């Protein structure tokens, strides 16, 4: 019987010829990523709960400080120090202030065919390069770190056939929010979203990252694209080689299938406080905003900054709005500097910050206050995620966010 891409990656990692949904397998992990959200907890457990601990393979570990950068309190400073010291003592790759973890992983580590655990729910992003990335808790990460292995319940795969091409002014963010809006926040619980079809070929790796990144917002264990020539080109440009390039078999088993016609997608927004409460932007137009956020592992890449800069160029951010622009990585920042995008944002009155998670996770930069409204390209709009419990978050594309920042209320770019 045929296998899906996800099943093939698990089979390879488990060292078995075939797996099927529902099987439990012990797998060898190709890589593990942990960020400053939880690494200090993992380190504490490693030091205090284990007898004679050792790290199976430090070279497979990556520690990334991205959630509170630069640190905002003695408490976060202490947990980051613990992480830094541990990385240094154990020869673990360590990144600090260089970007959001998933962006750094994509730029520097992820290879097609790999099975990667990350102590962060948006680890599913790595499917954009044909890897199986999934989020785990710090206990699972600790087990993986010490043994080099873990167990996996092979998930069912749901196929998403993408057809057509996104219209001008409509972005992968609109597509993915539309998908989540249709299938619901638990629509693919513990399943794999496999994106395929002609429409998938129209999407760059950066575009695919948006789709995979947000898969967890529909409950998915991960999401994945076939590592096609577009993915391999991205990889080659960064001097990496695939572990394995898989296609799903003709007779692979899918739990179910959906088809989305990209040409019919329109600009949408997710309303507070649920990612699946998705409506056309038109329906929320006119909502006065206090802050706009362009950034995150979801939409802080060069494409997003280009879209945002094109909209704000020669204009000013509305007086009462704080427009945060946060490149997803130092690489993105440098590229944006070179292209003059950073200058455009600064001239418009935006607040351009160092690469980090920022207000997407409501931490140290751009926290919103009582009853404030944020429109964001971040990953989530859960109650209180970006600050005060009474605040509200709308999610939209880079274009919608940038246009809203200028207008001072939610609008689409074409309404500006």
């Amino acid at each position, binding site marked *: 019987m045929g296998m899906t891409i996800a099943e093939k990656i698990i089979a390879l990692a488990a060292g078995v010829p075939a797996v099927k949904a529902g099987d439990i397998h012990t797998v060898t992990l190709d890589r593990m990523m942990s960020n400053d959200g939880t690494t200090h907890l993992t380190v504490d457990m490693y030091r205090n709960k284990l007898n004679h601990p050792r790290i199976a393979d430090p070279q497979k570990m990556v520690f990334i400080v991205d959630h509170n950068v*630069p640190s*905002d309190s*003695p408490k976060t*400073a202490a947990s980051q120090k613990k992480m830094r010291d541990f990385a240094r003592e154990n020869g673990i790759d*360590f990144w600090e*202030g260089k970007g959001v973890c998933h962006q750094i992983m994509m730029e520097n580590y992820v290879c097609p065919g790999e099975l990667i655990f990350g102590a962060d729910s948006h680890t599913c992003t790595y499917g954009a390069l044909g890897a199986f990335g999934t989020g785990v808790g710090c206990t699972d990460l600790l087990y993986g770190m010490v043994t080099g292995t873990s167990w996996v319940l092979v998930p069912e795969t749901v196929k998403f056939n993408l057809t057509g091409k996104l219209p001008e002014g409509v972005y992968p963010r609109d597509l993915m929010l539309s998908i989540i809006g249709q299938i619901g926040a638990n629509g693919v619980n513990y399943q794999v979203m496999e994106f395929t079809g002609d429409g998938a070929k129209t999407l760059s790796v950066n575009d695919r990252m948006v789709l995979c990144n947000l898969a967890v917002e529909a409950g998915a264990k991960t999401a994945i694209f076939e590592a096609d020539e577009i993915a391999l080109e991205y990889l080659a440009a960064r001097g990496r080689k695939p572990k394995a390039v898989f296609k799903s078999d003709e007779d692979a088993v899918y739990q179910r299938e959906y088809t989305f016609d990209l040409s019919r997608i329109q600009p949408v927004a997710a309303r507070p406080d649920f990612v699946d409460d998705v409506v056309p932007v038109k329906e929320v137009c006119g909502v006065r905003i206090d802050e706009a956020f362009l950034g995150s592992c979801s939409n802080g890449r060069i494409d997003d900054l280009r879209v945002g800069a094109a909209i704000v160029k020669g204009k000013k951010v509305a007086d009462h709005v704080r427009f945060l622009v946060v490149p997803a990585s130092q690489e993105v920042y440098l590229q944006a500097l*070179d292209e003059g995008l950073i200058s455009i944002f600064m001239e418009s009155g935006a607040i351009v910050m160092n690469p980090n998670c920022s207000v997407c996770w409501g931490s140290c930069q*751009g926290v919103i*206050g*009582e009853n404030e409204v944020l429109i964001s390209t971040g990953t989530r709009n859960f109650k209180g995620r970006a600050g005060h419990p009474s605040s509200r978050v709308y999610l939209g594309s880079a274009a919608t966010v940038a246009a809203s920042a200028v207008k001072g209320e939610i609008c689409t770019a074409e309404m500006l």
Partner: protein
Amino acid sequence: MGQTIIEKIISHNIGAESVKPGDIVTVQVDRVMLDDIMIPFIVAKFEEMGFPQVWDADKVVLIYDHLVPASQQDDTRHYKIGDAFAEKYGIQNLHRSDGICHQLMTEAGYVKPGDAVFGTDSHTTTYGCVGAFSTGIGYTEMAAILGTGTLWVKVPETIRVQIDGKLPEGVMSKDVILRLIGDLGADGATYRCLEFTGSAVEQMTVSSRMTMANMAIEAGAKCAVFTPDEKTAEYCGIQLDDFQKSLTGDSDAVYAQTLIYQAEDFEPVMACPSQVDKIRSVKELEGTIIDQVFIGSCTNGRLEDLKVAADVLKGKKVADFVKLIVTPASRKVYEEAAAQGILKTLAEAGAIITHPGCGLCCGRTGGILSDGERVVATNNRNFLGRMGTSKVEIYLASPATAAACAAAGRIVSAGQEA
């Protein structure tokens, strides 16, 4: 009898022939600066005092900088209160994310030579760099000025600091002011005005003078002043009038103290934890392992500071496991540094470049440290607990020294970091 610069400014302000130290006079205020942290308190006091309006809205400048970007849920409350106050009283001069208050006050032209300017921040002494009388006050006094346009002051005695000659390569005005604070002590100029003069001072850019005026408060000074010159006029975008041109210390003026330095004698120094007047030569401290470097603040976050740092770091990398945080002093500084490739050089070296604001200097965010960590910083204070816990060690230095330390991962003199 002759007058010092500050005496000339105050007597001109009150329309008197002359004033002498110790006189208590009421000055007409030319401009005030209100910063975000203090705004809710100022507004509450102002309302409580019962003034119907602000004395002159054009003379009031509101600047959000300590709390930008917001790091806690209630921070944005300060913006809201400031916005509402500005709206209610017709205040147009409002900067919500343009940089540090003191940088903006001079850079955006709010302060002119000879002005009397007060701000709700102790580093308001900065504006003496363009020959203004400026000093920090509390929020209650600010509220009173907003209503009356006046403030009582005691005419300070003046300490004259004369520096002649040429500073050695790699020595910045930060090294000069740190040494001075060390010599005077943290309270050595309390209630006094520091008047800087001499050929070395004349050669300095307005930015370099700002660094020195900024830190005058760290010796306890009420204010610090430089004679306005052509550089000042160009910086302020004005022609100096006769009064402004007259702002030099008269040869027969009475000084409480005169300190004379030869510029060639200065060397790179640091203020060691946790007193600003605990000054040591960088050479003596070489080898001390560090965890972080901060380049920024109203003291040393200007274009020339970033450029010096970029020159040191070009083609180099920040040492492994060391963080370099760069926080430009203003939006304009950021834009110019971007245009000149300075930010690129710094980012390529591995710097974390933040949005302009007070950043780490005010200790609310921007790179807070933890027990046992050591930071080299270009700002103005190394007080206990200012950047995290009381077990954090803060060394204050020039941008050149700070950048070299970032590359080396330990304290070194600029040029020794390779």
